[in-house]
């Protein structure tokens, strides 16, 4: 121990300048992280064990009661279910379509840059504005789809007035925003595939679908895996779309999501402790998925370098 201390002290003398420069360079970010990220995590754990309305000077420690109540809270299970339905649907549908779009864009079609720009634009469009225009677009009377409904003489679905369809209105916007984003990654992956594989397959007389199945998809596995997991985590945080399009309605919480419900609990119902328990469960979920990603991306997935 003392030898160790001695070594650190001598290397401190030798490297003082270097180390101090390092600390100065990383200080701004670390100070902000410490105050607004590391500390809040610790404090959230504490808050999840109290009952508090943001106002009273004393927080009543209630142990695990918040967690116990949460397990029996119908709203918890419903918003959890909605969030998973949203995230899984957006990831599977949007990324499936994005993969096909990337295959198309990879064919060196004329106007490829134009199509790429158009498909990516939804991703950078402010969600609040996108949510508003989709309310109008999906309206069976006011939106352009009414021409389609008219043509087939059917009654268009009133997405936002239906307890089962409202979440799908939100999913549609989520898909619209995700397609171009994911296709950019897929396209980058496709363009990184060594052309020699394709030439060899063609020489062997492989059919296009066989090439797709046995060459393209396996080689794209790392990108697909990365996008699915990170897209899933991202999608579970959906908030803006719910806030603008449905506010969790038409009958709360039929289209509410985890993040939106947490916001309601904390900043509308002022249940700081209970909301924190919600936050902790969310945190544990995200950590689990992330660790799963880190673990299996090493084992199954063959990143270049």
């Amino acid at each position: 121990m003392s030898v160790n201390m001695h070594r650190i002290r001598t290397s401190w003398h030798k490297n003082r300048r270097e180390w101090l420069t390092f600390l100065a360079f990383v200080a701004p970010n670390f100070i902000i992280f410490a105050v607004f990220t590391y500390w809040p995590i610790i404090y959230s754990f504490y808050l999840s064990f109290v009952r508090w309305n943001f106002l009273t000077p004393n927080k009543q420690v209630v142990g695990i009661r918040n967690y116990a109540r949460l397990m029996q809270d119908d709203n918890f299970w419903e918003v959890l279910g909605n969030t998973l339905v949203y995230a899984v649907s957006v990831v599977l549908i949007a990324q499936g379509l994005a993969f096909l779009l990337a295959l198309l864009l990879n064919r060196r079609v004329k106007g490829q840059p134009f199509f790429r720009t158009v498909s990516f634009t939804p991703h950078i469009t402010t969600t609040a504005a996108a949510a508003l225009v989709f309310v109008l677009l999906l309206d069976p009377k006011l939106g352009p789809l009414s021409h389609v409904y008219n043509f087939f003489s059917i009654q268009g679905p009133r997405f936002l007035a239906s307890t089962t369809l409202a979440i799908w209105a939100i999913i549609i916007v989520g898909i619209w925003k995700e397609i171009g984003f994911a296709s950019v990654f897929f396209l980058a992956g496709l363009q990184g595939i060594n052309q020699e594989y394709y030439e060899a397959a063609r020489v062997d007389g492989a059919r296009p679908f066989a090439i797709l199945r046995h060459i393209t998809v396996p080689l794209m596995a790392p990108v697909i895996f990365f996008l699915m997991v990170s897209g899933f985590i991202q999608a579970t945080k959906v908030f803006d779309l719910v806030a603008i399009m449905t506010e969790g309605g038409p009958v709360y919480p039929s289209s509410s999501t985890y993040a939106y419900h947490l916001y309601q609990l904390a900043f509308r119902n002022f249940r700081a402790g209970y909301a924190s328990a919600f936050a902790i469960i969310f945190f544990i979920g995200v950590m689990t998925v992330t660790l799963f990603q880190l673990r299996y991306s090493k084992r199954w997935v063959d990143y270049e370098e």
Partner: protein
Amino acid sequence: MGSGFWHNLRYNWRSGVEAAWPFALLTLIAIVLGMPFFWMLITSVKPLSEIIIYPPRFLPQDVRLENYVEAWNAAPFDRFYINSIVTGVATTLLQVIFALFMAYAFVFINFPKKDLLFLAVLATMMIPIEMKLVPNYLLLKKLGWVNTYWALIIPPAAHAFPVFVLYQGFKTLPIELMDAAKVDGATHTQTLLRIVTPMTRPLLAAVALVSFVGRWNDYLWPLIVTNTVAMRTLPIGLAYLKDTQEGGNRWNLLMAGSVFVIVPILILFVFTQKQFVEGITSGAVKG
């Protein structure tokens, strides 16, 4: 989509069905994905009477540009713009500067156990913001920052994503350059500002763009930390317009307001999309 579009379609068609279908399919996809923008634009110039007729028309008969003036006056959009621009620019600058110094330190300066410290930085990306809302709000209240620019600018000024992207970029720089600078007796600050920064300017631009778009579009954080109309940013201002007497159900004004919100970001994107896409993909695909 001018005459070149039709020429391509015809050209592809003549050269065989094989060559035509991808182009036709992409055109269809572009129409579907672009429809919200088209609908937003035409609705924003329609008189209300043309919005509520059934079935709706694709092109307005009567173009009312006054809708934009009315929308501008229906909510304090001048304030929303100032708030969005000031906080967006300030946060972006701080994010990039802080990330520049931090990434440089992690790549080029020796420090014991710096790998562990770097993990602690990356770990912040896994923390969902929902988890931090309540404690951060309490903290801002203690600091007296609620409803101030400080709250909108400082907490988001530290972000791991730009650090990570710059870290990846710095690692590809030729090490001989650093050694040459060291021999010349340059300090780390000098090396950073005179050698590393000029060499990675495109990457810095890409990182700044991604940061700015992220701040501009953010909804949750400004919703929590501001509480008066005058302090709201554009996305929340738009939601505010929806809930007012002037704006509620007047879809032409709401769409004009939406155009206010997205036009700056779309213009920025059209001119910088190459850097932007590089910004989000670097550090991800090759991670």
